[in-house]
């Protein structure tokens, strides 16, 4: 177990509370090596855990793993039309969770914010289908606004009334779900009233597809771009730094850093919600082309695993989102080809999160031992 945790927690392991380090050029090769080790380790844990669970469940492990492979990255079609298409909402919601968690905001409500964004975007393009690209852009913006507004409810409840956002965001997830359920059976339902969904949105307001990549749409570029910018902001901008400081130690941020903790926290709610809302908008405009109840198979919940595995670093979320997208795409294939319940990957995801938090805890323990020593160093230095 010791070697395992050492490797797992090494270099670019996932840490919730420490800022991403920016390695000096001389250490770059070393950290790249450690990163590669980490990725290999995560992948082997995923494969071994899946295989183990399959074996325990009495399934044909080889058939099931083969299905997992072909359904996720085994072919160009699966890679683009299944895995990458799924990775887009996971990247955006993963980033939403990372921004919130970094600031010490436990936003478990990305799912509800995604639904709010999807509903807002669908409403915009259904109301104004003839404006083409303008409608499209407006829908993306309104999706982000919708998600932001939805998250800000929890933000206000926390700042004004001291309501724990863990509970309020989960409650808001249920409220959003029923609200969408009402919309697609009420005001936004298609005119024949036969199906609980909206009309398909006009061709002219859909996100363009990437040529030669099946169903994959330009939302992928948007998501990757946002992750790049978000990661850069967290590392190199004052705003990003304030976010991290507030998350690390709000008392210190307020007293020593001249930071308005309340404002930064509320902004974290807003940004987080906006990112999740954008995910919903992109999903409607690029994948489903209509609003219906089950528009998200739990992206907002998987996002927590995505963000944690990436150590809350937006740059690394590109990879962890792709990993989880591959897993969930493969899960569908496993169910089809090998009769394995697709819920099995939820177990794998949960085990991955637990592995991350356990290694973090073990690492904190090891690190905390010589704290007296470092303090003595500081005193001697001063």
């Amino acid at each position, binding site marked *: 177990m010791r070697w395992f945790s050492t490797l797992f927690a090494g270099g670019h392991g996932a840490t919730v509370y420490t800022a991403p380090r920016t390695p000096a050029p001389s250490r770059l090769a070393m950290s790249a090596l450690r990163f590669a080790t980490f990725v290999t380790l995560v992948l082997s844990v995923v494969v071994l855990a899946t295989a183990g669970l399959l074996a325990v469940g009495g399934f044909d492990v080889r058939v099931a793993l083969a299905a997992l492979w072909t359904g996720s990255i085994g072919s160009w079609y699966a890679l683009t039309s299944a895995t990458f298409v799924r990775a887009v909402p996971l990247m955006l919601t993963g980033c939403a969770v990372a921004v919130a968690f970094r600031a010490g905001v436990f936003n478990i409500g990305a799912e509800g914010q995604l639904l709010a964004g999807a509903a807002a975007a669908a409403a915009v393009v259904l109301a104004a289908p003839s404006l083409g690209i303008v409608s499209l852009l407006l829908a993306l913006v309104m999706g982000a606004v919708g998600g932001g507004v939805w998250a800000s409810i929890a933000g206000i409840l926390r700042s004004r009334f001291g*309501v724990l956002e863990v509970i309020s965001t989960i409650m808001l997830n249920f409220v959003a779900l029923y609200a969408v359920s009402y919309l697609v059976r009420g005001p936004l339902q298609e005119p024949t009233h036969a199906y609980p969904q909206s009309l398909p949105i006009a061709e002219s307001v859909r996100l363009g597809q990437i040529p030669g990549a099946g169903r994959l749409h330009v939302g992928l570029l948007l998501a990757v771009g946002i992750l790049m910018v978000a990661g850069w902001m967290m590392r190199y901008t004052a705003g990003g730094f304030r976010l991290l400081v507030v998350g690390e130690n709000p008392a210190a941020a307020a007293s020593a850093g001249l930071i308005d903790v309340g404002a930064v926290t509320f902004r974290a709610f807003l940004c987080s919600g906006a990112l999740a809302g954008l995910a919903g908008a992109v999903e409607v405009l690029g994948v489903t082309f209509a609003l219906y109840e089950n528009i998200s198979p739990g992206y907002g919940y998987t996002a927590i695993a995505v963000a944690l595995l990436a150590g809350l670093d937006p740059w690394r979320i590109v990879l962890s989102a792709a990993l989880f997208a591959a897993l969930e795409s493969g899960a569908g294939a496993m169910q089809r080809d090998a009769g394995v319940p697709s819920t099995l990957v939820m177990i794998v995801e949960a085990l991955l*999160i637990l592995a991350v938090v356990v290694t973090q805890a073990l690492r904190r323990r090891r690190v905390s031992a010589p704290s007296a020593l470092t303090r003595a160093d500081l005193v001697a230095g001063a």
Partner: protein
Amino acid sequence: MNEFEIIAPFLAATVRTATPLALAALGEVLVERVGIINIGLEGAILAGAFGALVGATAGGLAAGYVAAIGGGLLIGAVFAVCVVGLRTDQIITGTAITLLSVGATGTLYRALYGSSGAALTLPTSAPVPIPGLSSIPIVGAAFFAQPPVTYAAYVLAPLLAWWLVRTHVGLAVRAIGEQPAAAAAAGIRVDRLRALAVLTGGALGGLAGGTLVLAQAGTFAENMSSGRGFIAIAIVVLGRWRPMGVALAALLFGAASALQFAFQAMAWNAPYQLFLVMPYLLTLAALTGVAGRARAPASLGKPLS
């Protein structure tokens, strides 16, 4: 239709809905009184519900309840090992454990019983009217002609209240929640009590899940806990971390959920989603009114040292 024809079923539905919420929330009171918040309660309820299914199909009602408690205990044990033993983050661990429970129960359910959706029908515990009390007009049948597990909740709430305030162990529990370092210095075995509290909370969550299956639905469905664990955590806040307050808060929630039956009986014309969403809206409203004013245990949710 006269008022009694609405009120009596409404009260009965109130108590029926409140029972699992009260059981889960009473367990969570204990957990939060030692300074831990267990978001995995949702997972414990779900595991309990699934345990009830397995137990009841194998060995009838009693086995169902035992297996339900076992399922909740299992989830509680995982949480205790991670949070108390290894000092992992409470919120993230709880979230992961709920995910684990959703995945595991879903997978096992489909593997054992098939995903065709053919709902299994299980034996449900029949109401046991208490002689005398159950014949009180209007309220009698609602409160005193219930399955035995409801009476267990009636007993548990005052018992837990007494135990927390009047016994040495109860005092130790409260001390840990307020000031763990001082409790440890006073010779209280902090981690052992924390672990026991989490296990008890898990077991009660499991029993709550068992109640859903064995006293209400008579069947299991994937994800059937549908947020009750989170509502129970809100109920703890609403009940101000006191067992009797929590029991009353659970009844209030039961009433809010039961309103939908009453409204339906009155043929009130509104989107049905409005009724379904009511418990969640009420949770938010209740937390808004209470959360700031009630004082939580001082060490609640803080990283364990």
